């Protein structure tokens, strides 16, 4: 029955398509469907619904709304509601609105299946559907050729890594006969490592962790609403979610948690740096996404699924809020360049909501996001001091860039005569901001158990020094932002343009991928294609050359030998029958000479034919055969006495064969 959960938005998508002639209706339908889905999700979570779908002999797709899924099935459609509302309003003049709404619904459906999945095959299917939807959403404005290219980049990066999941599923099924999460623990030996590597690879790419991070920048080519959904609850969340579900099962791969922590920490710090250095609002937010998911990875790797899950939720809310705010800013200012915004006075409501989101991003208590980040810190401190230090560094960075973004985007500045947000847009950001604030209830200690139950993990006991240190770091960040802003270096950070550009461009990872992977593959494919056009021909051409050379040498050999034999025999005869008759000392007999001349002629002719020849196997083979064919016809000289010689020669051969061929 759990299938109802992903089915609702799917039906919604169909309904949206059906009402394509009336965009208003379509928008309403879309929002209603998402809300219904959220309701269905609530129901599914409450009843711990499961579902199976028979696929074939021995294969079935299974859903089970347990563990972290209970939260996610509600969260995903819930975030989608304001996003859809915003999209319907912001894109109201776009002829592709209906497509966008429908695709977003499918996107949500895919994500719902992903979170509700109980086995690797089901998750893989959803995983890929989500990826494909992201391609469609990013290339939404397909008339601009750069956008589909960006979409392709994003899609190919994630898909390449997705194969890890495919391999993991295949290996799991091949070795244990099952792909369920709860049987992953049975894996031993190389399969467990293979499965772990596969899942980790897929998760890293999906969650835009180092080294796959740059695809998120490409994803910016899509409409803002897409980004809002993609970064918060769908797509990017999938990686962290999958790890949260599977890492605890894969205990046999002892290296896995460490690797997860390592990649997460790296991404958290690197993403923080990129976000700090970025001068584009959306890109900076995208980099912060990488950083935040990095923190969740760290939590999962440190064994605290609950912290990761909680942060997933809080992050989903404030990140969609931030993106919608960024979209409003974009609409108003016409560009996302951070140097040209400062919309605080122009759009006070939007600014207020954005500030809420930014503070959540900075993890300022008593917002819920701060709680979940503190829990992550607690978990990592248990894991090791250096991890804790890393997380603290990442928090510092997040506070820094959150403040920087808030000030640059919605700080006080000159009012701009841009487009104002419509009421659905305001409602959307308002609702999200409110939720963000409401999540502050998480600080109530009694709710800890509830969080543990809903995420299927345990919370680590925090140390007393953690919160003050965090607060101190936030304070430090605030001071830094303020100082920089005073000096007018908040945008360029006074670090030199090349350095900031390098950092902001993901440390050249993108270029590296192109130089190291894309270009070589393309070059190889071109070489192979050229090779393929000639390959068979080349072989055949060589064969033709050899045949030809052989036949030429044979014919010259034959000229000498055949004639030599004849000549020798003739000389002997001449001696024996001296004087009785005169012998013809003239040139060699016509037949022999004719054949020899003919073959030489043919050989040169065929070489010319060969060199100016055409491509392809059959043609090439035909060429070899064709030369032979012409030569064969030379035997048929039209002269009967030559035929006599052939008969005589044939008889000699016949005698030889019959005598020695027993």
């Amino acid at each position, binding site marked *: 029955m759990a299938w109802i959960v992903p089915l609702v938005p799917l039906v919604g998508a169909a309904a949206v398509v059906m009402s394509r002639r009336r965009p208003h209706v379509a928008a309403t339908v879309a929002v209603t469907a998402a809300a219904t889905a959220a309701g269905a999700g609530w129901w599914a979570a409450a009843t711990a619904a499961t579902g199976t779908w028979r696929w074939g002999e021995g294969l079935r797709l299974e859903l089970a709304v347990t563990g972290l899924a209970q939260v996610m099935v509600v969260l995903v459609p819930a975030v989608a509601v304001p996003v859809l509302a915003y999209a319907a309003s912001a894109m109201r003049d776009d002829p592709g609105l209906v497509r966008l709404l429908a695709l977003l619904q499918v996107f949500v459906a895919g994500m719902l299946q992903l979170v509700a999945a109980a086995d690797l095959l089901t998750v893989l299917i959803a995983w890929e559907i989500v990826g494909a939807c992201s391609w469609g959403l990013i290339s939404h404005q397909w008339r601009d050729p750069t956008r589909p290219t960006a979409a392709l980049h994003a899609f190919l990066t994630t898909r390449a890594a997705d194969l890890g999941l495919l391999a993991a599923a295949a290996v799991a099924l091949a070795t244990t006969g099952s792909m369920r999460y709860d049987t992953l623990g049975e894996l031993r030996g190389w399969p467990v490592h293979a499965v772990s590597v596969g899942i980790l690879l897929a998760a890293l790419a999906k969650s835009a962790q180092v080294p796959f991070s740059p695809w998120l920048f490409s994803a910016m080519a899509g409409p803002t609403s897409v980004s809002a959904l993609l970064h918060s609850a769908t797509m990017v969340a999938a990686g962290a979610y999958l790890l949260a579900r599977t890492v605890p099962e894969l205990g046999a791969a002892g290296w896995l948690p460490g690797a997860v922590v390592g990649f997460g920490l790296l991404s958290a710090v690197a993403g923080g740096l990129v976000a700090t250095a970025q001068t584009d609002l959306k890109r900076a937010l995208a980099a912060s996404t990488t950083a935040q998911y990095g923190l969740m990875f760290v939590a999962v790797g440190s064994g605290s699924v609950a912290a990761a899950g909680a942060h997933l939720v809080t992050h989903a809310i404030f990140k969609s809020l931030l993106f919608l705010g960024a979209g409003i800013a974009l609409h108003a200012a016409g560009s996302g360049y951070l140097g040209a915004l400062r919309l605080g006075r122009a759009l006070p409501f939007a600014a207020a909501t954005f500030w809420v989101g930014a503070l959540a991003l900075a993890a300022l208590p008593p917002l819920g996001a701060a709680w979940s980040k503190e829990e992550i810190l607690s978990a990592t401190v248990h894991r090791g001091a250096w991890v804790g230090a890393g997380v603290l560094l990442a928090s510092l960075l997040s506070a820094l860039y959150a403040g920087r973004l808030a000030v640059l985007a919605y700080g006080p500045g000159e009012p701009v005569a841009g487009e104002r947000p419509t009421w659905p847009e305001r409602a959307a950001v308002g609702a999200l901001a409110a939720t963000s604030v409401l999540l502050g209830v998480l600080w109530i200690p009694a709710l800890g158990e509830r969080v543990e139950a809903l995420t299927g993990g345990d919370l680590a006991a925090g140390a007393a020094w953690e919160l003050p240190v965090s607060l101190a770091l936030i304070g430090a960040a605030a001071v830094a932002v303020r100082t920089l802003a005073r000096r007018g270096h908040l945008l360029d950070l006074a670090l030199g343009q090349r350095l900031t550009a390098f950092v902001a461009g993901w440390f050249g990872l993108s270029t590296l991928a192109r130089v190291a992977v894309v270009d070589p593959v393309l070059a190889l494919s071109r070489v192979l294609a050229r090779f393929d056009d000639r390959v068979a021909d080349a072989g055949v051409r060589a064969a033709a050359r050899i045949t030809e050379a052989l036949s030429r040498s044979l014919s010259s050999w034959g000229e000498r030998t055949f004639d030599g*034999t004849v000549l020798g025999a*003739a000389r002997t*005869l001449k001696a024996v029958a001296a004087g009785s008759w005169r012998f013809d000392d003239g040139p060699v*007999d016509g037949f022999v000479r004719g054949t020899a001349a003919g073959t030489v002629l043919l050989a040169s002719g065929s070489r010319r034919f060969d060199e100016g020849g055409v491509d392809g196997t059959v043609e090439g083979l035909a060429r070899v055969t064709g030369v032979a064919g012409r030569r064969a016809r030379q035997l048929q000289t039209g002269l009967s*006495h030559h035929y006599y*010689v052939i008969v005589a020669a044939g008889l000699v051969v016949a005698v030889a064969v019959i005598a020695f061929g027993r």
Partner: protein
Amino acid sequence: MSGVTLVDVAFWVFGAGSVLAAWLVFRVDSMVRAAYWLFASFVGVGFVMVLLNARFLGLVLVLMMAGEMTIMAVFMVMFMMNPAGLNPMTMVHQHRTAVVAGLVSFVALAGVGLVSDFPDRPVDRGQDPTEALGVELLGESMLIFEIAGVTLLATMIGAIALASKRGRYGDAQAGSVAPELPDSAPSGTLEPAAETSMDHSGHGMGHG
């Protein structure tokens, strides 16, 4: 056989003679002479047959060849309108190859004769070979004989159909072509261009 008998001498004379005559067929410089040397060669073989007690066969051979050679000579002189059927001529091609082929076949077949171990079952001298042949012809091998007859019949019909100057309804040549195609010569296009000159430029045996 011990000692050299008269039969042996005769055999060698006729045998070697027939080979020599055969050789001369291709060494003399007129076709008519060649025809007569050919006849001589057959006569030699005919006599050897007689020596081998196959009198009837020898006789038939000689008579038949006499007739044939006459036809051949007449043919050459009359039909080819070549009064110089007696003219000198040595017209050979691929001579060396021909010599080799002739020698090889001689050596091979003579080798078979000399090396090979044939059964030794000489004919019973008391038997009348002619009568035996007759019995065979009308007995066991009658069918063979009949086939030979049919073959000769077919040959006659065919030779007449090909060679007779006049047909049943006038010129035998008339109408004896392939059905015409509209565009060109009988039986289509594809005539080798350089070829027509060969037909009418006479070299070799003069005619006309």
